[in-house]
């Protein structure tokens, strides 16, 4: 069954299991399309979006192919020196163009410049084989990695923890989900959420440099928080509440800009008047926020990476009122949906999200090949009357068209569309890390022995107060009487999941830094250890040393010395950066029109745009199809037609195009497809129909092996 399944052309091939790619795969399969989902890695999420054990992370950060790491950071300027200099228009050449230029046919697919004409003479189409860049030459998003082992004084504590490598879940890109965001709505509406477990983030905090030695303060954002906060004065309370109600009033309009009837006209008038102006200016001049309040709103709630004077730090333009209000609304509307805080944390790592969508895809008969060993891409360069041009008429007809892949054993997999992660198709030379617009996410992962938050005082609990004192240890004396108890039950700080926003210039950090401290609730580390993630964004050309970028913060909160010290001790640490947005990737002019490269990871500490991105890609490929409607419950599925083999062939025919016409040729020339299916890949998920047919629980096994 599997052989014939592989030989028949697919509607779409998805390469890479990043979150966007996985959502697209799930949506396509859900819409009844034939989906082939490939990933050369043996884990979900791609290198930048994966969740790893301690040992695995070491391998991902410094992969076995050291060449790729060095080349990703240094090869670009040498390959195209012009791109390294100030000229921005120069586009680095890609392997695809290189391959197209070099016309020396070679029999061996390993050779980087071989083009093979498809041997099937009966085919009207000419398919070129463009070799994919070898692993060592491929673009790799992670660079500048340094892993630091503990000092001798902490080695005793570290040794037993290091032996529990598999108890760690370390995210390369740790990200929380706003409770009311598109991605959460999608998880609910598509029923993918039932494959996942989330924990509410226990506290949202912000840091400030004064008073010195203060623990991070809770971000006041609900009415009760504003009321009991001692962080600012009476007038500030009113100003903040007014701003918050302004945003709340505007919420429905931002969701549905066509319908202004639900919004107070005064609110709308102010918004339309200022929406394109600078957020900082508006907050200061129009909304009369005091510096103290501005600090909280700007950094802790809107997470704006700008200096207090409004100078943007990791983008070219300052945030507008429209963008800022959107962020505030996002934050506020998420409060109270699942917990007091607006954020959810995916248990067992963010890669679980990718995996859940892959599972849905597999449930709807998507085919999976993990550790896919692809040799080359099949490209049809001849103009064809029936290219997938219906959907992308704007593309030039003479541009090459993606037709499929050939793996190292010569098996053909064909589809009219490819959705791919850049890291699997682009050579390192195609990505200019030092491009002036390139943005990297600087990262640090620390394993510490306890929380940066002080333990809850026992006497506070005895007094029957669920203690605010836990989060406000530096609060003034007077607050002890009027503002101690908070609604949250007392929690051991070492168990909590805490988000801490560290605004620019607080502890020598140039940029806004998100600190995520994962306690026992997150299940990210074995007992006795905590995981701390530090994240910030920067122009790659300006700041590339993560160790230095976080130096002040780490020195402020942590010690590297003996465990007897007052502050938590860093037991193990890793510093690296992830290339987040390189314009060269987007400007791939030579990429065939029917290849869609997914943007690399969004790097802020939340996942906001993936759902929209995936939807845009899906709509481009399958216009008019429903996007991820709710998957039915297994008990609500009735089984009446056993003839599933032919049921979807008509739908297929209509979407077939030139590339899939090549299917008969490939199947005739590749009698070994069966071997591929049984040999190199895990049992294909074609079996899903049967699993679901037995009407077992919703959780059907994906064919992808769990990374271990």
């Amino acid at each position, binding site marked *: 069954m599997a052989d014939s399944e592989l030989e028949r052309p697919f509607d779409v091939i998805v390469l890479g299991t990043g979150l966007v790619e996985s959502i697209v795969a799930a949506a396509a399969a859900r819409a*009844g399309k034939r989906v082939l989902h490939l990933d050369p890695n043996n884990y979900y999420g791609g290198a930048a979006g994966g969740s790893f054990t301690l040992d695995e992370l070491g391998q991902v950060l410094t992969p076995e192919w050291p060449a790729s790491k060095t080349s990703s950071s240094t090869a670009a300027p040498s390959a195209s020196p012009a791109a390294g200099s100030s000229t921005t228009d120069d586009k680095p050449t890609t392997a695809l163009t290189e391959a197209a230029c070099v016309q020396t046919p070679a029999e061996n697919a390993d050779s980087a410049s071989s083009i093979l004409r498809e041997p099937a003479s009966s085919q009207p189409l000419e398919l070129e084989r463009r070799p994919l860049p070898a692993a060592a030459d491929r673009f790799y998003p992670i660079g500048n990695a340094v892993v630091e082992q503990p000092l001798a004084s902490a080695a005793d504590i570290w040794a037993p923890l290091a032996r529990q490598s598999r108890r760690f879940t370390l995210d390369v890109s740790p990200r929380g989900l706003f409770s009311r965001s598109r991605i959460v709505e999608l998880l609910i509406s598509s029923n993918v959420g039932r494959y996942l477990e989330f924990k509410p983030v226990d506290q949202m905090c912000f840091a400030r440099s004064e008073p010195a030695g203060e623990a991070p303060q809770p971000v006041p954002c609900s*009415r*009760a928080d*504003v*009321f*009991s906060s001692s962080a600012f004065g*009476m*007038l500030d*309370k*009113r*100003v903040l*509440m*007014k701003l918050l109600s302004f945003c709340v009033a505007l919420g429905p309009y931002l969701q549905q800009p066509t319908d202004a009837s639900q919004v107070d006209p005064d609110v709308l008038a102010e918004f339309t008047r200022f929406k394109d102006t600078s957020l900082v200016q508006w907050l200061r001049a129009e909304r009369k926020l005091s510096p103290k309040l501005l600090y909280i709103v700007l950094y802790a709630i809107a997470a704006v990476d700008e200096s207090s004077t409004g100078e943007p730090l990791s983008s070219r333009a300052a945030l507008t009122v429209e963008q800022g209000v959107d962020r505030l609304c996002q934050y506020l509307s998420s409060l109270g949906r699942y917990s007091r805080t607006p954020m959810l944390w995916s248990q067992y790592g963010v890669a679980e999200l990718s995996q859940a969508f892959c599972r849905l895809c597999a449930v*709807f*008969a998507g085919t999976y090949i993990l550790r896919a060993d692809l040799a080359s891409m099949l490209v049809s360069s001849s103009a064809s009357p029936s290219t997938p041009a219906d959907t992308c008429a704007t593309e030039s007809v003479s541009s090459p068209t993606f037709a499929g892949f050939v793996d190292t054993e010569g098996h053909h997999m064909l589809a009219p569309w490819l959705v791919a992660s850049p890291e699997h198709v682009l050579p390192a030379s195609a990505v200019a890390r030092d491009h002036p617009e390139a943005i990297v996410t600087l990262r640090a992962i620390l394993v510490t022995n306890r929380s940066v938050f002080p333990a809850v005082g026992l006497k506070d609990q005895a*007094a*029957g*107060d*669920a203690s605010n004192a836990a989060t406000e240890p530096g609060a003034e004396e*007077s607050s002890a*009487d*009027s*503002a*101690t*108890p*908070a*609604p949250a039950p007392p929690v051991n700080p070492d168990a909590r999941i805490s988000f801490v926003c560290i605004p620019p210039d607080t502890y020598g950090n140039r940029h806004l830094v998100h600190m995520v401290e994962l306690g026992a609730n997150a299940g990210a580390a074995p007992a006795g250890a905590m995981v701390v993630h530090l994240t910030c964004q920067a122009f790659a050309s300006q700041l590339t040393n993560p160790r230095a970028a976080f130096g002040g913060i780490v020195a402020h909160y942590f010690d590297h010395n003996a465990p007897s010290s007052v502050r938590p001790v860093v037991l193990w640490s890793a510093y690296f950066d992830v290339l987040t947005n390189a314009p060269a990737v987007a400007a791939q002019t030579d990429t065939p029109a029917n290849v869609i490269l997914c943007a690399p990871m969004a790097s802020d500490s939340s996942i906001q745009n993936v759902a929209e991105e995936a939807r845009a890609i899906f709509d481009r490929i399958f216009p008019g199809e429903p996007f991820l409607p709710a998957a*039915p419950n297994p008990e*609500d*599925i*009735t*089984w*009446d*037609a056993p003839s*599933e083999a032919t*049921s*979807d062939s008509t739908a297929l025919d209509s979407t077939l195009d030139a590339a899939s016409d090549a299917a008969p040729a490939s199947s005739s020339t590749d009698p070994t497809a069966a071997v591929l299916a049984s040999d190199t890949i895990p049992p294909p998920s074609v079996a899903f*129909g049967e699993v*679901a*047919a037995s009407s077992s629980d919703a959780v059907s096994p994906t064919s992808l092996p769990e990374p271990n």
Partner: protein
Amino acid sequence: MHGRSRVKSAAEVEEAKQKERSKKLALFQQLNARVFAKYQAKEYDDEAFALTRELLSRSPEIYTLWNYRRCIMLKRFLQTDCNVQDECKAELTFLEGCIATNPKCYWLWNHRRWLLEQAPKPDWKNELDLTSQFLNRDSRNFHCWDYRRHVARCASVSLKSEFEFTTAKIEQNFSNYSAWHYRSKLLPMIFADQADSSTILESQLHKEFDMVQSACFTEPEDQSAWFYYRWLLGKGKNVALADTTSSKTTHQLSPGTREVLESELGAFRELLELEPDSKWAILTSLLLMHAIDMRAHREEILTSLDRLRAVDPCRRRYYNDLRTRLLAELDAAAQ
């Protein structure tokens, strides 16, 4: 696609619901008839006890049956082999379930109160915890607050800890008349001025002002805080603000109090700059001006009254009345 979704039609769902409902109704009516027949026949037996329980757990609002049930229980208590404590305990557990589903039913709380009077060894501590639990679910259930005050009295809980409890509840959500009310009852008991028991220690009064002002600034529309504020003003030394009907306003403010009132007035003026239409802010600053120095603020008081009539036309007659009264006071003072 291997299967398709099975969806019940709306009519099918409705029909199933209807069936369920009529079944329930029949059972209820049957029970009801039997219980009332026994009640009329004055039968206080075990069957009646079981049947009332059955019926009341479905509908606790039938207070006649709670009375009936209490009669049955009293009869049972008289039996020689009856362990009253256990009996009460069982009934309390039963009630707990009822209250959980109907937390605002008068008869349930009433029955609970009666039970604890009957019990030889009432566990007040447990009752107090129970009210805390119910108030966590709904912090504004006045039945529960009422019961808590009763329990706190019987359990002789320290006033201070109850005071802190109200603080906690107000911090969760300050739109809570019950919590502010309880606070206003506790405050004079804990912080009464030694010299004059009708007023409150100034140090504590200032703290209270801070707290309630915080609420007023956070949400000027919320009147529960303003009510408490007004009550507080009446509790200060020599400030007869709470009762504006009295024409005998004393004007010998102590310098300390005057200072406090001036600063409060200043704060509300700032608030009014941000919220010029806040009725409560206007009214309260008017009362403050009245207390500090009525004659000096004459014009401002009168414009405030006009403003109030404009922003709160529903109560314009009240403001008219207030105006007449204040004018009379002013005239009297001028003579």
